[in-house]
């Protein structure tokens, strides 16, 4: 994962360098030996007026209300020992699409190349599908199948994105940024560690009663890449939209305390909001 993030950094820095080369001002023409009357040359019909390079402000701030798409659903199957026999339970954690908050600040350090840092917070509470095979207390190989739903499984992602940025200002109203870099994810994920069933003699059936949960809190480096376009009404204030892919995979300790299971964090985010530049 570290290697992937570095590769993205290199690619993005390459893109930014190329863009910077294009934005480089042309050399100043030599003075004419003879003064030429400053007679304006009328533009021919159909001939574009030369684009005047726009200055790039040093600071760029975006505040987005974003939407993070799902796709990080994951599951865990746990084997446990009960009634002198192995049983198992499985949980399917669905990470649904949901709102996220994204704030980033970029600073220009050389021409249109800059660095930035962004923060994304995603939080969602979703129910989790649960199923278990519980050994019978009296007989081997007669497990009771139970299933149900564990409500209120919380998921919270906080990602700090460090970005290399390349900025383009095609007009004085529009500013575009492409960026990429490593992301530092912290995920708090509720997981089912145990469960309770309701059973009664003769114990041939059982019903799911409730899941017992805990929150795992794990961090991992991932990557981010994205683009942002702003439209400025004034010199410093505008609105814009952005898309970003930021993701990682975390090995979380298993419910039983031994081994791990994977939790995917992040994903595709699209957002829109306020843009500021100074």
């Amino acid at each position, binding site marked *: 994962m570290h290697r992937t993030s570095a590769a993205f950094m290199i690619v993005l820095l390459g893109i930014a360098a190329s863009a910077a080369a294009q934005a480089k001002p042309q050399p100043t023409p030599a003075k004419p030996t003879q003064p030429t009357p400053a007679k304006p040359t009328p533009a021919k019909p159909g001939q574009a007026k030369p684009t005047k390079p726009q200055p790039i402000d040093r600071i760029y701030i975006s505040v987005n209300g974003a939407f993070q798409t799902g796709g990080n659903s994951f599951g865990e199957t746990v084997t446990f020992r009960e*009634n*002198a*026999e192995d049983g198992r339970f499985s949980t399917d954690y669905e990470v649904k699409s949901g709102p996220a908050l994204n704030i980033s600040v970029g600073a220009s350090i050389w021409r249109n190349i800059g660095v930035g840092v962004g923060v994304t917070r995603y939080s969602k509470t979703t129910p989790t599908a649960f199923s278990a095979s519980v050994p*019978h*207390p*009296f*007989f*081997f190989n007669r497990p009771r199948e139970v299933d149900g739903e564990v409500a209120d499984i919380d998921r919270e992602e906080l990602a700090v994105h460090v970005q290399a940025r390349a900025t383009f200002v095609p007009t004085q109203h529009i500013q575009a940024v492409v960026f990429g870099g490593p992301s530092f994810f912290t995920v708090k994920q509720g997981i089912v560690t145990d469960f309770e069933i309701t059973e009664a*003699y*003769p*114990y*041939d059936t059982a019903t799911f009663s409730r899941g017992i949960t805990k929150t795992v809190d794990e961090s991992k480096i991932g990557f981010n890449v994205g683009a942002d376009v702003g439209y400025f009404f004034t010199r410093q204030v505008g609105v814009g939209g952005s898309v970003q892919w930021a993701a990682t995979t975390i090995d979380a300790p298993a419910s039983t305390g031994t081994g791990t299971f994977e939790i995917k964090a992040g994903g595709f985010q699209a957002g829109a909001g306020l843009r500021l530049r100074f």
Partner: protein
Amino acid sequence: MTRLTAAVVAGAAFLLWMDVGSAQQPSSGLRIAATTVNDLRTWDQYVTVQIRRGDLQVASLDQDPSLPSRVVERMQQFYQGVPVFGAEVVRDSQSGVAQSIFGEVTQIFSMETRPALDAAAAERAMMTAAGAGARLARRMELTILPMSEGAPRLTYSAIVATSDNVFRLFVDANTGAELLRFTEIHTQSAVGTGQGLVGGTKKLSMRSQAAGFVADDRLRPPLLTTYDMRGDLNRALNVAFGGAPLFPSDLATDSDNVWTDIPTVDAHAYIGWTYDYYFKRHGRRGLDNRDRPILTLVNGLRRENGADPNIPDELRGLFVTNAFWCGACGPAGVGLMYFGNGFPGNLVFQSTGQNWGYLAGSLDVAAHELTHAVTESTSNLIYLNESGALNESFSDIMGTSVEFFYQPVGAGLGQADFVLAEDSVRTPSGAGLQGIRSMVNPIAFGDPDHYSIRFTGTDDNGGVHSNCGIPNHAFFLAVVGGTNRVSGQSVTGVGIANMEQMEKVFYRAFTLLMPANSTFSTARAATIQAARDLYGATGPVVNAVTQAWTAVGVN
């Protein structure tokens, strides 16, 4: 009802008593088997009148989980306030309308019911008759005892425990002379030894405690405990027959809950399974349908000591080559089960070539013994003569049914078949007879398979372990079908796949419909009626039951 009307009904009932439809009149009593509309109408009136007179008193009201709309009244016959031993009438009703009535009542026209002996004198007479060391295990009561010949007698009756037996004893209430005794220990025949025990790991419901685990099932509704006598025969005797208390330290124990003591494992597991069978198949909650505690003793004598010459033969027959249920045994007469361990594997009986192994190792044995307790709390079939044989037979039938409930069908170890105790009582080579009784071919073990060749002697309480072969074979024919060896009559059974039907028929008849002193004929009528109740008046079930009884010569 006006007095005149009552008198008319009473008079009519008396006349009906003397000559009614399907009723028969043996010399000592009156048999009722009313299942048709006409018979039911007249006998229902008779029962109603007798209840009003106090000559019949309702002893219990039960509901059959298979037929929740039905109410079964079990009525005890009284004469001038004194109960008549074994004389009962059982009326099955739906919404107050009688569906069947079975009964065995005794005709008593005139009898003195004031005893010449008072209770103290009667108890002395009873103790004298029982022998040294005897004690009353149950309260003594005045009882009218119907006699096979002659008029009924006024007696004192009690269950008496001695150092090696528990039996019901009747002494004449006027003279103190012993009139009848029969054992209350419901045993399986002890004729040989067996080898081998069904393997496989079983789950056991135990209880953990500070220093390990004890055989105390806390998952099933009743108290279900297994006590390890640790080879101390005297201790086992004192507990079983002397009423000595059991202590927590007597519970079978294991340090890591991986149990290795074979009789403890099998007894504890199989008793639990049997309880489960009754609950799942018949909706019954244990022995008395009220979750009566089930106490079990094992290891009264270690298997290696089974042939110890210092052990009296009567104790060997009871505690080595035997398993028994005794409802009056144990602390405070709570009742208990016992499983013998048999002999060392190299010892076989010369007569059969069989070795007797751990009796607890046969699922049908455990179920058989527990079924005695079920019978005791339901029809209470008197453990004597035909009713005693029916008592044994019902235990065999349920024991076999439990096997089929849990085990795959087959003739091997741990497989369900119609042979009793085949997992415990075996020939070392595996050839020849296995087990102690066969429902398929009773004569193979010397038991009658037809009423015409029934045992008529007095040994073994009138041949209860032998004559059970007749109803056993009827049950087998009703399930599997086949031809009776003696009569040559064929039966179309319901099939093994439908065995549950026949289990329910026999369960309903034997626990709800039959009176305590039922004969084979009563059992026939009751099972046919139960088949009608459960599966309709016509059809394969009724046909199978009817044909089966006819084939074994019971009409």
